[in-house]
């Protein structure tokens, strides 16, 4: 039995029919090696607190508009090549949710109400799903004072896991290139630093690009992420034209980007801040046991309480002896 499913043009087989009889019924052009998958995961920051405030600041650009622009990008990506895949994750203060694909879409199959304007059914199904999901999520939002930061690191981790899962489900011989686009609204949360960096390095190892489109304030973490993984970082001068920026800069995948003239990468400030004063320093001392950074030398590391022995130069020896005597 052969059935076609809407969202992926994969032909699912039932029973024990092996791939060898595949070729008998269909031309060889459909074989798996022809279709290299390109997966785009969009992580949208839907922090309701920030967006609520934003609605007062700039009424013409609201969360609805932002989501529209994201849908435009998603549809364009799916329309580029049949083998392209899409995933959208909404990053909230309490959790991160998949807007597309969701469990419901897998269950329902071809039950979607087709849109009236003759759109490609995949696109309309995608849009409907995303809209439904976001409505549901935001209607269930509760007010909580303690967590007002977007869980971006968690969303990033979910995206990486999803990519990993999809890469395991590929056909034999198919290759997948994936990238993550983060659309960030609220400010950075310093507490997510470690998790974020782990996620970035995991993406680097897996050759996954992380692009960033920042709506309001610059994010040092995302700048680092883009620099390390080879993606693009863009801070929008105009939020209203978000869709245009997304299509121009972030629609092309990494191979095609080399052919385009895109905004140049800015210099990233990689200076670390010392643990004692949180000042940015260029030269400092690092504890060899716990790797904490200090701006001045102290004989005991305050984080892990290891005692250090530094041999000073010979000229300083008499002074050192004096100290010892005093002690």
């Amino acid at each position, binding site marked *: 039995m052969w059935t076609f499913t809407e969202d992926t043009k994969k032909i699912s087989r039932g029973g024990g029919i092996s791939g060898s009889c595949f070729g008998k019924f269909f031309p060889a052009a459909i074989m798996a090696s022809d279709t290299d998958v390109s997966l785009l995961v969009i992580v949208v920051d839907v922090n*309701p*607190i*920030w*967006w*609520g405030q934003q*609605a007062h600041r700039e009424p013409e650009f609201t*969360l*609805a*508009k932002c*989501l*529209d*622009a994201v*849908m*435009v990008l998603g*549809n364009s990506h799916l329309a580029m090549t049949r083998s392209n895949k899409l995933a959208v994750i909404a990053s909230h203060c309490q959790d991160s949710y998949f807007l597309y694909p969701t469990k419901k879409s897998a269950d329902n199959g071809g039950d979607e109400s087709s849109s009236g304007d003759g759109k490609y059914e995949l696109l309309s199904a995608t*849009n409907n799903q*995303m*809209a439904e999901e*976001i*409505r549901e999520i*935001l*209607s269930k*939002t509760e*007010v909580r*004072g303690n967590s*007002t930061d977007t869980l971006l690191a968690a969303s990033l981790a979910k995206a990486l896991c999803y990519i990993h899962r999809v890469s395991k489900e590929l056909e034999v011989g198919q290759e997948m290139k994936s990238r993550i686009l983060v659309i960030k609204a609220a*400010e*950075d949360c*310093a*507490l997510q*630093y*470690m998790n974020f960096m782990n996620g970035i390095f995991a993406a680097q190892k897996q050759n996954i690009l992380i692009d960033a489109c920042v709506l309001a304030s610059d994010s*040092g973490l995302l700048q680092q992420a883009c620099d390390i993984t080879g993606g693009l970082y863009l801070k929008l*001068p*105009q939020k*209203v*034209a*978000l*869709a*245009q*920026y997304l299509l*121009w800069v972030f629609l092309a995948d990494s191979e095609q980007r080399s052919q385009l*003239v*895109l*905004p*140049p*990468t800015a210099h990233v400030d990689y200076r*670390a*801040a010392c643990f004692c004063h*949180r*000042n*940015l320093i260029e030269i400092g001392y690092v504890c060899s*046991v*716990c790797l*904490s950074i200090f701006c001045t030398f102290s004989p005991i590391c*305050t*984080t*892990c*309480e*290891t005692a250090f022995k530094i041999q000073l130069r010979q000229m300083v020896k008499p002074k050192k002896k004096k100290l010892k005597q005093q002690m």
Partner: protein
Amino acid sequence: MASLSEEVLLVVKKVRQKKQDGTLYLMAERIAWGPEGKDRFTVSHLYADIRCQKISPDGKAKVQLQLVLHTGENITFHFANESTAVKDRDAAKELLQQLLPKFKKKANKELEEKNRMLQEDPVLFQLYKDLVVSQVISAEEFWANRLGGVNNTDQALYNNNKQEVGISGAFLADIRPQTDGCNGLRYNLTADIIESIFRTYPAVKQKYCENVPHNLTEKEFWTRFFQSHYFHRDRLNTGTQDIFSECAKQDEKGLKSMVIQGVKNPLLNLLALDDNTLDEGYGVCSPQPSTSVANRTVKESSNSAIIKRFNHHSAMVLAAGSRKGETLNDQGSETSSTDGNSRDSDCFHPPVKKAKLQEATEYDDLQGENRPKTVPLNLKKSDRYAHGPVPLQSHQYTTSQDIINSVNYIHHEMSNYKPNLTQVMSSTAASSAIAALSPGGILMQGGAPQAIHQMIPTDIQGELKHLYVAAGELLRHYWSCFPVNTPFLEEKLTGHLEEMLQAAYNKFHAWQTRRMMRKT
């Protein structure tokens, strides 16, 4: 100066140099002359410094020997002993003739090596020109680190490039006698086979050296060799008058000593191996103790002779293969190792035996682990890792009222959310975004910066590269002086290197001003 620890090869008395009587000494590495009665040498030259020697023609009254040095200096020795002057002079000349080439090669070799290196590596050549020719570094310092390292590897490359070719075990069989038609046999001997025979059976080589070409021609030697029973399989009668009968006796001796030495591997008991079985699948039974020769049948004894012969041959081939690089002129070691196995058994003395036993009885992964000692990590302030090395950022606080308002607003707004993709942005917004993203727009200001190598002409780039490489070389000299644990290094650092760096800096400065003037 007169180091008596040197090996003196020749002493010639009554040799005059610069109208002074004295004695001429030829040592292992140098030639020296000391005046009569004095203990020290006034003239001493290494053979490496001598370019060539000249002698006065035979008819002349004065019997002289002249040394021409590389520097162009000439030193003349006048052999004044009335009776033996010519003989002395000739003896000295012969010795010098033998010694000079050896040292000459060394000196030349170094120069050759240097030239070759400079020719092969243009970067090195440029460095040499920049540093040595312009007097920043002296030539010796330049070559100090390079020659030593390169020489070793080069020797390995060029000289020992060819692997030692082993001996084919079947070389005797390769001879393949062919019938000559009229009741004779032709043996085809190639140089390879001859070499194999000599390497495997040094006794035969010895015989060859003794007899050819004094007693026998080569052809005769080999004819006798093949005719002798030594060569043939059945060496039953060894009592004939044969030059090779001695070889056979030596072989017997060798074989006996091999058997006596045995194999020193404690885990291998050769004597327990046997061919006699009780029956198929029933294991080994020790044979009847019938080892006395009389009990053996003729067939058995001829079989054992062949087997003995084969074993001996294999042992000799293996021994010859392991005797690498050793010249077979070395008679002393040769006679001791005619059995071939002595070399191997020398290696098997107690430490190796112990190692073998240990290997067989101990398992590495069952031993206790010997991991290096590490410092345990106990963090007192682990919350520092939560934010990591990021600077403090001003935190924007939202009041709870704000939070409530925002959330309510979003509730309200998104409850009726319907994607409206046809109205996602206005055309003005889109065109302004495009303008910002086009070359020259606000977002494209960083430039794709013009690569610097396109802006600067190639010759300047080349000069800068050379200067950079030269500076790197100087830095390498600087850093190689650390750690400063000898006064020589200290002196080099403070005095010598500073000059070098100053000279290099001046050179760079000159180049810079030249460039800048050219621009303006």
